[in-house]
């Protein structure tokens, strides 16, 4: 179906779930007022990113009042949002929730936790162990969180699981100022979202946050990428924004006819070769 998506490029406050919940509710109201049926928030929208030892303090259970509140709001608009999830056995996950029709429809726990350069996620967080597509009222979706998307296999698995839309929640730090108009990190992401969409004939809904934490900027630039790889809407760089875009079912249908790579993808061959590689590597 055709629908309007809103990418809520917000500026969360570090470690302040109540303040961030208020920001999220305001963005949801604005998205509804603008006629959107789906609103996407950044990675860790409810908490901020460089949490370090704050992780246990800001973590929420899936049956917490905050998640209940989001469920309630999802009766009016579908919501994809990032937060720290604590499990019953006290593991902490960088999770993305998809809520729709008053229910929690899907939880993705970030699988690839970057722990290099300025990143230190594995020190504080447990990693997820699956990539699963799921059904929404708009079609079959898959969710990735930031670094997940840099692993080719992650969006590939979701596309093979018949997702035709990939939502990517991100908290990407801006870095790599050079002679060009783009940041190193923004131009790398723009290549990635576009190429992923093209390879997998999927649309990509990418939402990145803005603001500064301890001098590190988050560059925003959220975008809606058509299955052709063309960018249909892009948010402001380094400023709060609500990016609205009309998403057409027809564009997906036409692209899948025009470039039927996913139809022709040979899963048996891939599995056979991966098994062989695994066998040979474990000798």
């Amino acid at each position: 179906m055709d629908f309007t998506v809103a990418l809520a490029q917000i500026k969360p406050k570090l470690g302040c779930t109540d303040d961030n919940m208020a920001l999220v509710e305001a963005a949801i109201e604005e998205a509804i007022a603008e006629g959107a049926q789906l609103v996407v928030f950044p990675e860790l929208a409810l908490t901020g990113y460089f949490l370090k030892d704050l992780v246990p303090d800001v973590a929420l259970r899936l049956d917490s009042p905050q998640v209940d509140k989001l469920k309630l709001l999802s009766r009016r608009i579908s919501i994809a949002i990032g937060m720290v999830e604590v499990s019953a056995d006290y593991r902490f996950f960088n999770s993305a929730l998809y809520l729709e029709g008053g229910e929690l429809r899907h939880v993705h726990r970030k699988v690839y936790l970057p722990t290099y350069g300025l990143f230190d996620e594995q020190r504080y967080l447990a990693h997820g162990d699956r990539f699963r597509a799921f059904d929404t009222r708009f079609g079959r979706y898959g969710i990735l969180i930031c670094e997940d998307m840099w692993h080719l296999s992650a969006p590939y698995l979701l596309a093979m699981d018949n997702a035709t839309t990939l939502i990517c929640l991100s908290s990407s730090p801006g870095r790599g100022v050079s002679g060009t108009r783009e940041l190193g990190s923004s131009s790398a992401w723009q290549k990635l979202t576009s190429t992923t969409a093209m390879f997998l004939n999927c649309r990509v809904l990418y939402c990145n946050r803005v603001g500064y934490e301890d001098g590190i900027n988050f560059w925003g630039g959220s975008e809606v990428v058509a299955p052709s790889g063309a960018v249909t809407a892009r948010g402001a760089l380094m400023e709060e924004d609500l990016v609205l875009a009309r998403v057409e079912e027809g564009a997906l249908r036409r692209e899948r006819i025009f470039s039927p790579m996913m139809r022709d993808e040979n899963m048996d061959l891939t599995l056979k070769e991966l098994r062989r590689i695994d066998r040979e590597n474990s000798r």
Partner: protein
Amino acid sequence: MGALNVNTALLRQILVGFVRDEVHKVGLRKGVLGLSGGIDSALVAFIAAEALGPENVYAYTMPYRTSNPESEAHARLVAEKLGVNHELIEITPMVDAYFENFPDADNMRRGNKMARERMTILYDQSAAVGGLVLGTSNKTELLLGYGTLHGDMASALNPIGDIYKSQVWELSEAMGVPSEVIEKKPSADLWAGQTDEQELGFTYRAADELLFRMVDQRMSREELIAFGFEPQFVDGVHKKVQGSHFKRRLPVIAKVSNRTIDRDFRYARDWGM
């Protein structure tokens, strides 16, 4: 050149946004800085004026009796061009009073004392006006350790600490820092005729070309020499970076508990902001 070139519009946006965001998020509106008449503090004044509004920027020129009078004139030029608050505070009486007891103190001790005297004034003024102290050390001098610990290296926020001196020049031109300030030879201005490059033994341009490849691109010693840098230059600069690393860290704490500050008690400074 080339490798160090920056898109000044993008850099300006990030640094101005940084000062605005980090000052406002702690509930303040004002910034305080030492305006020496040199290019680094001039650039920070330009960034701060754009971020906070010139009326919210408090610049202090703090000469010692041996400071070059031209420095004061240049500081005034910058302050007037921006319309920021500007005050002159002489440090000669305080510094001389102290060294009356230590007449044999060498230039290094005297220079460090002056830098720390200025720091105490900036922090006092920051309490008086209710603002954050803005740092003016660039990446080149931070890496080389060419600054005084707890003196000019002390600040609450440093917008230019991740840009090399060559990039300071480039951004200063783009932001309209007066050409007199950009074109003069960099000097710590501790005594007449002193220049940084003379004291360091190499030019900032040469140091930046090397540091960028050594630090940012992580080229090995062999790669740097193959690229064309003299081995003695590579080793000399590396030694300065390593030897000054203590200046870039917090004091070392002896660990006895399970949660030691900064070791296993880790929070961002923007905790709750």
